[in-house]
């Protein structure tokens, strides 16, 4: 097998391993966000936020997850479009040289 393929497989396995290990050892944790954890700690001191978002807040967790998925989709779309373009260019270059 090519070295590059092995690197990608090993990389993906380590990533999956880390996430699965976290989920398996986490027991009945709440899996809340660490950002939220810090927010709670501040709220406990009695601090009140002095400013609220002037636009809007996503009305529910579902809408929020939609927007996060959209963010990831935009990023992936742009990256893959460019990767595909580069890949095509480098293939064409190889063919010319061959």
């Amino acid at each position, binding site marked *: 097998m090519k070295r590059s393929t092995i690197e990608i497989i090993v*990389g993906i396995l380590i990533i999956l391993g880390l996430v699965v290990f976290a989920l398996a050892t986490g027991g009945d944790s709440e899996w809340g966000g660490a950002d939220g954890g810090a927010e709670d700690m501040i709220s406990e001191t009695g601090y009140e936020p002095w400013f609220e978002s002037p636009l809007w807040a996503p009305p529910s967790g579902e809408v929020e997850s939609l927007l996060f*998925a959209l963010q990831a989709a935009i990023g992936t779309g742009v990256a893959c479009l460019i990767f595909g373009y580069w890949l095509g260019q480098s293939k064409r270059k190889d063919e010319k040289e061959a």
Partner: protein
Amino acid sequence: MHIMEGYLPMEWCIVWFVLSIPFIIVGLWQMKKLIDKDQKVLPLMAVCGAFVFVLSALKIPSVTGSCSHPTGTGLSASFFGPFVTAVLGTIVLIFQALLLAHGGLTTLGANAFSMAIFGPLVAWGVFVALRKAGLGLGLCVGVTAAVANLVTYTVTSFQLALAFPIDGSIVAAFTAFGTIFAVTQIPLAIIEGIICALVAKFIVRVKPEILKSLGIIEDAEIAKIQGEAA
């Protein structure tokens, strides 16, 4: 690392804005200079920005039983340095503050300083040092991405500690906020490092000339990395 809207006293909001704005201005100027010199860097810049978009949208469960997200700034910090990264990271933070109610406009300066500026700045220093030491590009980008991630969350803990000392002690507050983030962040830093290392090597295989023109890599290493895929 997102400090939520309104969760930082006004004077600290101003401090972090004042510290962040110069980096963003220099970053915009550097971006313009790079693009004027060679339009071919534009797609690479877009890819780096896209990775900040993707990785900072993924909330990943970690060993502490809570979730957090990578920052995605390592690729950009490695290839373009901290100033251009400041611009790319801030764009993502504005998107999240306006549309996702994640982070905020008042805390934008503070969040930009941690995620888009100081994390990438330290990481870029690490990248330059490791490259000088002659280490391979994949390894260097991987370590850089992990450092950017960890430093970002350290800065956030520090920012919160400055604004909310516990019984007057900034150190105690830093430890408390750091505990929420630090352990959670270590596995995520490793994940981010692996992804960025693999992507960097992929870019060397398909489009090495841009990295070469940026002075990131020489012909000998390009040939070696391309050989691994043959």
